[in-house]
């Protein structure tokens, strides 16, 4: 924990020195995030993002999957994603959004929007 804090301190100090560059990077990080599918698993399984973030899901398996909202009715449902296909959704409102693969419903993930 102590080491971790120290490292963060170093990063902060370095970042402060970079000034404007840091702001640009942070703005970009807040706007985009990604989830990948490997071995029938969403990664990260739980993703935390700021409101307004566009999340892109990429299927890296050689079997198709879908990204289907668990809400009723579903808030989003991707078409079937074949290998390397992507699906993007922008999460505008804070909340917890559970989703699953409608072909393999044991595959589950969630996006927490703050």
């Amino acid at each position, binding site marked *: 924990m102590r080491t971790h804090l120290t490292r963060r301190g170093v990063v902060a100090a370095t970042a402060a020195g970079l000034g404007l560059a840091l702001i640009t990077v942070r703005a970009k990080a807040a706007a985009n995030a990604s989830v990948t599918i490997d071995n029938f698993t969403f990664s990260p399984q739980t993703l935390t993002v700021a409101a307004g973030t566009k999340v892109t899901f990429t299927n890296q*398996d050689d079997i*198709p999957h879908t990204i289907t909202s668990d809400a009723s009715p579903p808030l989003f449902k991707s078409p079937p994603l074949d290998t390397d296909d992507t699906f993007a959704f922008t999460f505008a409102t804070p909340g917890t959004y559970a989703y*699953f693969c409608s*072909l*393999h*419903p*044991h595959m589950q993930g969630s996006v927490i929007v703050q």
Partner: protein
Amino acid sequence: MAELKSRRAALECMLWAGTGVVWTVAGGIPRGRLIGTAEAATRDFSFVQISDSHIGFSHDPNMDVPGTLKSGIDLLKAMPKRPSLMLHTGDVSHLSKPSEFDTAAQIIGTAGFETHYVPGEHDVLIDETAPFIERFQKGVKQGNAGGAYYSFDNSGVHFIGLNNVSNLKAGGLGQLGDAQLAWLQDDVSGRSASQPIVVFAHIPLWTVYAPWGWGTDDSARALALLSRFGSVTVLNGHIHQVLQKVEGKVAFHTARSTAFPQPAPGTAPSAGPMKVDPGQLRSVLGVASITVVPTDAHLAIIDTPLA
């Protein structure tokens, strides 16, 4: 050319004879025998099962899925006794594309068998069941409109085709749903308990391996409706390998895929296609034939690899 043809036929017969295994279920105990010793081919009524064609799949280990489906169909066409009908237990296509349905229908059609289909989850990805019904269940009297489930009789056997791949729920397994179960109850009521029942559906109707979704949440309710029958055979696909189980009067059986193998339950990080050497591929793909033995109503199932 004639010589080539007959040599090919001879080779196919050798493959068939050398690798086929007959499963007879007698007294609740499944017994395996080499096909050469089996009586199955001489019986009156037989039918065949194919599954998981996955037309549209093109990855390691199989870049020619139409080719292996064709090999499976050719194997069935070459059977010494022509089967009365064929069942397809779903995942005809990989991505529910019309072109995939076309290719599958064209190849399967070359057999000229009366063919009965149920959908796999890969067949209902676009517009739910409608395109699949339009293509593969045309003229079928649906259990419920759009349900993609139905029944029919042939040679004294009652066949029930179920759909357990629609509207799957997060974290769940396959499901039949209340409407389908109510229809099934109606469908079998009043039938003689001595009539052989063959149920065919895509996802196994027994829990093979829940962590991979290999089972059906409400299958016990369906089996309860069939419990009074003396001979129930349940044929499934989905898991791309042969598994058998007998529970009371019910014999469960899953068929090989004609496209790619999947790992044995729990033996790999996921249920993705199992990579095998090109020379091994055909030994893990295949088709099944089932014979109704009129004297004791038990069914004999023969699984035959493509090579």
